[in-house]
């Protein structure tokens, strides 16, 4: 919220400098996001009186003699502007002057004649018509006749002032106004607050035809209306225009300006209805009907629902409550009678309507944060005061006040000094607490250490001792807090849990294997599922949708992590990396059914991705390179992963494995299909030879299988024996099938290690050779006879079951 420093001074005697005030506001909880000096970059620009002016023949210039008081009684200044005349008071930038935009004024030659300065337009001083009449004329800014010659223009034009842009937290709607901030300033400066003038006199004139009714008291708990008449239309005084201009309001007409002025000053949005346009001279506040339409002041037609609150006359909507008036009841030059409105509309309803219609106004912003009924009363009184003092209209004697009776006046409750201090942890003296509360206009009655507190009507946020503690420490100063390290809650059992420990260890292990941890967004688009060629009926297509995504690219919660990993790889290929390994442990979100009736399952997933070509040196990436990682990961955690031939829409049909652990399928590993690589958004030249290997594992299941307990068993010390067997077998026979037969056949075979495999024409195109080293162990020494016998048994079983022949 923007506030003019000089405006604040209307209510508090501020003796400190603006920057000091900014610091104090900050300390009280009001961050000044920006402070702007209006006269910034304007130096040595003064009021000059043109004592003579003549046309510089043969040029478009005029030669002016300008009296600048103490800056020289006779400055020769050339100007090209046509609107300067003898006796005119103008802004004169004398030699050495500075203007916005980095302009510096030096003596300079114009058409062979020296000019000692420059006469300025409004634009050159950075002001517009709302700030000073004549600022936007085509030519030099002509100042009022009573301007003082030689005076600094910043003083003349009220530019020696600051704009404070203050951010207000959501709990302080009462501070959404100059007066609200002034109350705070008065409190921390310990100065009295000078309230605005709320007084006005009504005439005897009434308007009995007017009726005001509120049908929807739940959405409009308070509605004030006041009849004014004999409305005069004229421009607001300069001071009012300037103040409004700083806050972003263009001056329209004195009566409209007054409503805006009260909004900024008191924080109460006001509205003026042309009584002549109100059918039946009636105001009815009701819910709109579904599909009811209203054209708002911005000339846009709005289609409404039952959720929107509408201000109506007998037959039609005339204003969107708390947001914007209707075009049909707009104040015009012919408007003679007005019904002024000050109301409290329910904040969440205004917010909903404002959002639904995409219509954000200053009034709506105030209502959304919340206005209080005290403010409603003050707003109306202040508006009537201004209408009267500015001579805009006569104040009639028809006043309307509809109330739901919600406002019970000031809240009163008891707190003890020790309770307040128990929140803070320090001992703020009772006298200080009382002083602070009184400075904030709380009523305080002391009875020993008990305080009976009467909360100001505008402080609807204050309800209990904690709120009082905050008020106290805000004013007393947070620097009084004494850092103390937990006198209570000293001993607790902390630290990572078993699974948190395991997860960190798993991550570190993968880092050691050359994988970089990545972080990808948890949402993506259904197009990502198309990318990995999931069929329409894939269960992963059942994804949680966001009701309000920020972009279509992030519209569903991911059900599978592979697309994220593929994108990470594609992005790194794009940035000219030739190989790399990545992993992520994060959630996928699996709804039990759609539409959602309960939170989806959040399943932790471990995703590995590796890409690379096969270079002469360096590692390259292949199915087995990544499989090795998984085997290391399993072995390091005392788990056993079993790989079987698998199938997956995005993996190479011949290079894809299902991964099992503890008898459960926990994931898949494979090489990315070429047609997916082909479609990646990377340069064609980078696609050839690009191997992308992806593994995705159910980490939640792995967590369930982690071994929580370990038992030591002594090494047997008995002799082991090893035998190599080379097998000629069918090309389609899987290694895992052979291993299974070996394990089933020999209980003594403790280790099976594939040491060689090859295919050749000599073996036959449908054959391959596999060589295993088998190690036998038992609770006794393994003799040669035993080893040979076991090996023979194994070989015959392999032959019988898989047709493998020992070579």
């Amino acid at each position, binding site marked *: 919220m923007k506030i003019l420093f000089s405006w604040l001074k209307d209510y508090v005697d501020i003796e400190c400098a603006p920057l000091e005030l900014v610091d104090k506001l900050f300390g009280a909880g009001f961050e000044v996001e920006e402070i702007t000096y209006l006269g910034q970059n304007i130096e040595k620009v003064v009021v000059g009186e043109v004592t003579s002016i003549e046309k510089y023949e043969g040029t478009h210039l005029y030669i002016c003699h300008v009296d600048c008081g103490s800056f020289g009684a006779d400055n020769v200044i050339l100007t090209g502007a046509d609107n300067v005349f003898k006796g005119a008071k103008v802004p004169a930038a004398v030699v050495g002057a500075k203007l916005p935009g980095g302009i510096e004024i030096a003596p300079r030659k114009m058409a062979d004649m020296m000019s000692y300065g420059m006469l300025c337009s409004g634009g050159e001083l950075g002001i517009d018509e709302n700030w000073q009449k004549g600022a936007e004329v085509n030519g030099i800014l002509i100042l009022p006749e009573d301007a003082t010659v030689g005076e600094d223009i910043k003083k003349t034009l009220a530019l020696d002032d600051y704009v404070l842009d203050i951010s207000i937290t959501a709990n302080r709607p009462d501070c959404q106004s100059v007066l609200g901030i002034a109350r705070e300033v008065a409190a921390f400066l310990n100065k009295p607050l000078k309230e605005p003038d709320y007084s006005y006199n009504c005439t005897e004139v009434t308007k009995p035809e007017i009726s005001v009714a509120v049908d929807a008291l739940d959405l409009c708990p308070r509605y004030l209306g006041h009849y004014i008449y004999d409305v005069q239309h004229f421009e607001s005084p300069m001071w009012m225009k300037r103040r409004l201009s700083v806050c972003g309001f263009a001056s329209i007409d004195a009566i409209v300006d007054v409503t805006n002025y009260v909004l900024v000053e008191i924080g109460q949005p006001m509205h003026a209805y042309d009584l002549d346009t109100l059918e039946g001279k009636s105001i009815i506040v009701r819910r709109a009907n579904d599909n009811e339409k209203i054209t708002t002041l911005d000339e846009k037609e709005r289609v409404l629902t039952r959720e929107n609150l509408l201000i109506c006359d007998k037959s039609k909507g005339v204003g969107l409550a708390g947001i914007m008036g209707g075009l049909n009841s707009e104040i015009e030059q012919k408007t003679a009678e007005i019904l002024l409105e000050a109301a409290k509309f329910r904040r969440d309803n205004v917010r909903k309507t404002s959002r639904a219609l995409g219509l954000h106004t200053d009034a709506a912003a105030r209502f959304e944060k919340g206005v209080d009924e005290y403010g409603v009363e003050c707003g109306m009184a202040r508006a009537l005061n201004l209408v009267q003092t500015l001579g805009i209209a006569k104040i009639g004697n028809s006043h309307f006040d509809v109330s739901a009776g919600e406002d019970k006046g000031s809240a009163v409750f008891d707190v003890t000094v020790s309770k307040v201090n128990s929140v803070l942890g320090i001992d703020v003296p009772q006298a200080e607490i009382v002083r602070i509360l009184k400075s904030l206009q709380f009523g305080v009655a002391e009875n020993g250490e008990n305080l009976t507190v009467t909360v100001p009507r505008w402080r609807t946020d204050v309800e209990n001792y904690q709120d009082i503690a905050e008020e106290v420490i*805000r004013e007393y100063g*947070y620097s009084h807090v004494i850092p103390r390290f*937990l006198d209570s809650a000293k001993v607790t059992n902390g630290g990572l849990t078993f699974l948190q420990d395991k997860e960190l260890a798993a991550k570190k292990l993968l*880092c050691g294997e050359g994988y970089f941890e990545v972080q990808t967004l948890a949402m993506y688009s259904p197009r990502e599922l198309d990318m990995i060629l999931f069929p329409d009926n894939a269960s992963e297509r059942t994804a949680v949708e966001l009701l309000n995504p920020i972009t279509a690219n*992030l519209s569903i919660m991911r059900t599978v992590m592979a697309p994220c990993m593929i994108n990470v790889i594609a992005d790194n290929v794009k940035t000219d990396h030739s190989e790399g390994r990545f992993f992520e442990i994060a959630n996928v979100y699996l709804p039990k059914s759609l539409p959602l009736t309960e939170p989806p399952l959040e399943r932790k997933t471990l995703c590995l991705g590796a890409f690379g070509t096969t270079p002469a040196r360096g590692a390259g990436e292949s199915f087995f390179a990544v499989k090795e990682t998984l085997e290391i990961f399993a072995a390091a955690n005392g788990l056993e992963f079993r790989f079987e031939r698998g199938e997956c829409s995005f993996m190479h049909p011949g290079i894809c494995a299902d991964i099992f652990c503890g008898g459960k399928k926990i994931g898949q590993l494979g090489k990315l299909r070429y047609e997916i690589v082909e479609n990646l958004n990377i340069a064609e030249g980078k696609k050839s030879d690009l191997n992308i290997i992806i593994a995705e594992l159910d980490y939640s299941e792995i967590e369930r299988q982690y071994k929580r307990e370990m038992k030591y068993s002594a090494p047997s010390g008995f002799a082991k024996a090893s035998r190599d067997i080379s097998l000629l077998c069918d090309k389609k026979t899987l290694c895992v099938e052979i291993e299974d037969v070996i394990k089933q056949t020999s209980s003594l075979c403790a280790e099976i290690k594939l040491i060689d495999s090859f295919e050749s024409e000599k073996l036959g195109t449908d054959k391959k050779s596999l060589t295993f080293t088998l190690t036998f162990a038992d609770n006794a020494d393994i003799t040669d006879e035993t080893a040979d016998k076991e090996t023979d048994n194994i070989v015959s079983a392999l032959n019988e079951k898989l047709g493998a022949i020992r070579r």
Partner: protein
Amino acid sequence: MKDFSEIKEQVKAKIAEVKDGAQLSEFWQSYLGKTGVISGLMKEMKSVPPEEKPLFGKAVNEVREWAQELYSAKQAEIKRIELEQRYERETVDVTMPALKRKPGNLHPLTLVKQQMIEVFAGMGFEIAEYPEIEDDDHNFTRLNVLKDHPSRDMQDTFWLTEDLLLRTHTSPGQIRTMDREKPPIKVLIPGKVFRSDSDATHSPMFMQMEGLVVDKGITLCDLQGMLDQFVRQIFGDGAKTRLRPSYFPFTEPSVEVDVSCFECGGKGCSLCKGTGWIEVLGGGVVNKKVLENCGIDPEVYSGLAFGIGIERITMLKYGITNMGMFFANDMDFLEQFKA
């Protein structure tokens, strides 16, 4: 007696010619093997008169031993030469890189998250993780963020249904912890949170860390004391905190916590925008309504809570200026965080 000098000359000449193992074994066969010249001499024994036989035998043996010595010396020499040749042959360019892959590392957010966890774990905080998908009740209502209150607008929420949402902060973890545990409570809740916001300093997904302490006699002083400890361990011994008023519906009083600028030591620089202080987190004394909502008696217990943006701390620590870098996952970025 036969003179063996001729044979000896011959042997000497031959052994001198031997250059490798093959020639050496050829030499053996020619002279010392069963069919060799020296072995052949023994066959001449038959034609030697009996009285000369012992002498002849001795002389032949002497020649054999002499040749044997020559052979052994040569054998040793050849072995030495062959070893030298092997070493020569096997010499490698030791400066060629051995590394096939770059070592990977943790994501900077994990790194900083883990550092922060260690600090609080050391203070006795348990580390708890909760669902990322929450309901209105836990994410808002029981945290005193009421339906009609504008504070709901402080956080742009991603909704999944009327009731379910992506948690906008880790604060619902406060409720979940207090539902499950009774004081004393010291819990740290790290995790992903989501808000519909995206620019250089905002990401729709980011990470927070919530802290909650509940016991008898917990005050604002404890909050600052604990956070002083935290910033010293994260930003260095000289770091201190400053509290200033703020507003969160679930704490009262609420504070923003600034840390003294670690870049300039508080003198004022571009990082702290000349103020000497950097905003790092928010916190406060737990609102009594939140305690009541969890069945904890605020007349007996009080608490403190704080929430830290992990990205914010990471950006400050490493001088990262664009939030997007964390989720772009470019290796040039990722590989810088070795710790």
